[in-house]
């Protein structure tokens, strides 16, 4: 079995290399578990270029159109190699943060994308953190320098420093939209009809501290003046801030310290100002871990008046994510399926702007599967897994 796997891996590697040289067409290799292939899938499979059949999986090489057909079919498949995207994206390769971005690396990469796609990709700083780092916002849209009357949606990453994967998903999403724009009609349509915003790294000071000093650092780097540092940014928003001490803490020593007052932290205050100047239709905040999509309320167990809409949207997103590689994502009201939180981002977004807002707790499912530590090999799979859900929500916002 091991020999077969080695042979198969080598074979695939050679094949991808050969294709890289001779084919100009964008190519992806996907696989299907043999025991999970359903009768309705056989006709689709017969149209694909099957390149190998292993003991457990069947491997196919697909172009963009075929790939979209597979995604639309909602059949379960796995990403084996995405030459056109994964191979072209230069994620950081070295350093304490491995393939995850540090603040500087992200700053460099998003500015390079801005240079590469000046018509649709624009980087601005919405403010600076406590230690003076820029909090960058990326806008992706046609006529990107103009403020058009188009639906707007926002994806935010890294409220919490140790959740490194939550930077990568919005970054890769921005990268994907800009790269696919010229060749993928579906993406072009989305980008042309909307303004998609990303704040991939809301807590740059915390991230740097997590990279350089203590991997499990969660909060920002506020000097609380008593020997403790940090405010939990996701407890510092101004809606139902500090309503009780269950959903946040007044103690500076706590991991969920809510700060001295609402928006006491520059990171949340600048995001507030930024969002107040725009008219978003929906917002997503990426976190990890738990594989669950949460919607308001977090501060109370009372059901919100828009619960049905939230439940529908999060349910559809969870299905789309789960479909990719059968990694089940749950969904529900934050306070009911997780725990109470007050002063958090999605409650504030919904409470103040009255728009759908979601916390997507990315992989893994539980702490013993890695918790906040995501293997580097999971960066692309987690992104691909979450891509259909993000596109779905953007499409919903546009409509």
């Amino acid at each position, binding site marked *: 079995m091991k020999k077969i796997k080695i042979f198969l891996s080598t074979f695939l590697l050679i094949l991808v290399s050969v294709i890289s040289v001779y084919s100009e067409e964008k190519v992806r290799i996907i696989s299907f578990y043999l025991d999970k292939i359903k009768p309705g899938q056989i006709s689709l499979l017969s149209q694909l270029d099957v390149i190998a059949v292993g003991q457990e999986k069947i491997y196919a090489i697909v172009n963009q159109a075929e790939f979209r057909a597979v995604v639309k079919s909602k059949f379960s498949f796995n990403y084996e190699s995405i030459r056109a995207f994964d191979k072209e994206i230069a994620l950081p390769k*070295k*350093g*304490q943060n*491995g393939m995850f971005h*540090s603040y*500087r*690396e992200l700053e460099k990469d998003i500015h390079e994308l801005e240079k590469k796609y000046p018509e649709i990709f624009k980087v601005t700083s919405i403010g600076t953190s406590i*230690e003076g780092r820029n909090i960058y916002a990326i806008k992706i849209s046609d006529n990107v320098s103009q403020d058009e009357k188009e639906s707007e949606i926002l994806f935010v990453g890294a409220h919490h420093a140790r959740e490194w994967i939550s930077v990568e998903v919005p970054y890769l999403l921005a990268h994907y939209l800009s790269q696919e724009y010229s060749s993928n009609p579906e993406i072009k349509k989305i980008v042309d009809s909307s303004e998609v915003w990303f704040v991939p790294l809301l807590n740059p000071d915390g991230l740097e*501290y997590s990279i*350089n*000093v*203590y*991997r*499990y*650092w*969660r*909060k920002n*780097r506020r*000097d609380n003046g*008593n*020997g*403790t*540092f*940090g405010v939990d940014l996701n407890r510092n928003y101004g809606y139902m801030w500090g309503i009780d001490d269950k959903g946040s803490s007044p103690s500076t*020593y*706590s*991991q969920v*310290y809510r700060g001295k007052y609402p928006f006491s932290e520059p990171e949340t205050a600048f995001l507030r100002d930024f969002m107040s100047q725009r008219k978003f239709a929906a917002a997503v905040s990426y976190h990890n871990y738990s594989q669950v999509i949460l919607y308001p309320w977090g501060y109370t167990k009372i059901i919100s008046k828009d619960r049905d809409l939230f439940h529908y949207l999060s349910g559809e997103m969870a299905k789309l994510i789960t479909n990719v590689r059968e990694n089940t994502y749950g969904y529900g009201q934050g306070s009911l399926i997780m725990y109470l939180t007050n002063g958090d981002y999605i409650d504030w977004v919904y409470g103040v702007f009255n728009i759908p807002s979601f916390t997507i707790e990315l992989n*893994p499912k539980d*702490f*013993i*599967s*890695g*918790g906040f*530590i*995501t*293997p*580097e090999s999971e960066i692309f799979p987690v992104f691909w897994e979450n891509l259909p859900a993000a596109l779905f929500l953007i499409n919903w916002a546009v409509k």
Partner: protein
Amino acid sequence: MKKYALIIFILTFPLHFTLHAQSPPLQYEDEAPLGTWNIFGFLSARNLGMGNTAIANSSESSASLFNPALLANLKSFKASITLFAQTSEMFRYSLINTSSIRSSKLGISIFDVGSAGFIFPYKGFTYGVNYFFFESYERPDFVVPYPGQPLNGEFSGNARGINLSVSREIISDLSLGISFNYIAGKRYLKISEEFGSGTSYFDEKSHDLYGWNLGIGFFYRTPFNLNVGASIKSPLRIKTDSEILREFKSPVIEIFQKDTSKDETKKPFLAGLGFSYFLRKNILISSDFIYFPWKKYEYFYFGEKVERNFKSVIEICIGGEYSLLFPKESLHLRIGYFYDPQPLRKTEINYNNFTFGAGVSLGKFRIDGAYSTGSATDVEKISSKKFLISIVYFSGVNDEKD
């Protein structure tokens, strides 16, 4: 003999107390040395006692760590050793302070050889060889007893150096000296956590450090009992071979990360100007002004430049020595003050240090002790205290009596 025993007891008296040294409350203390950032060389007890002054005022082999030109004044073989003890307490020690390490002070004690070396004149030149303690990266180990989730931290390491110097009087009363300093050391950090159910995490970083710089110094003995010294040190580029090892381990997954990097820390050039003046034959006053251009400090870590936003500072030192000269021995009493501003901008720390010292010359030996106590003017509760003891052996002339 009883008299000497009493003197030695007085000199070592401060050792009986808890000693303290400063530690800047950085947010990234992993790189910062223990104690002051401003390190020009390792002082002897005599120089610490005289308010940290050494550039125009040093009389043992460690002189070459400050101003190699001073060696030319030392006409005979000399060997010296300096031992030091200090306990550092860290206010706002910020490594991991959420729900675990709080504002309570954490202390660490170190006791080590500060410098040891010898000098010898040969064919018109004076040569010096010194070993010296450069920086300490020691931090208190800690164990935080989270319920069922102990968190451990280990931080250790230091850098030491070798100094080779040569000096000569180039014209009457004007001497020139040059020195070569090689620094090497190790820094080690480990944080580990146990989460229960066979799940654990550790983060281990080790750094091998090495670098060198050159020093050049001048010393001029004016006709007016005034001596002037000047010393410059070239930038010290410390190369670092860094290795990081991280592992999350649970019954269902092992996540492993390993990487290495060749990093560099560039400590800027240093310039010092010193004066010493004999008010009388037995009263010496001295002062040093040392410029530390920390604005030019550069630190690269795993391929990224780490921003420090330091400011340049000038350390100001002044001190005096009163000697009771007897036919066969002499007793020296010293006092001094030095202002030691740290390069940090956001948390401004400026230490006012007072120093006291005493020494006794007994035939071919001199024994010195010094004690310094300082406190920061801008940050509450930060203080700096240390104790040094030096033993100097002369084979010939006692230069201080010249």
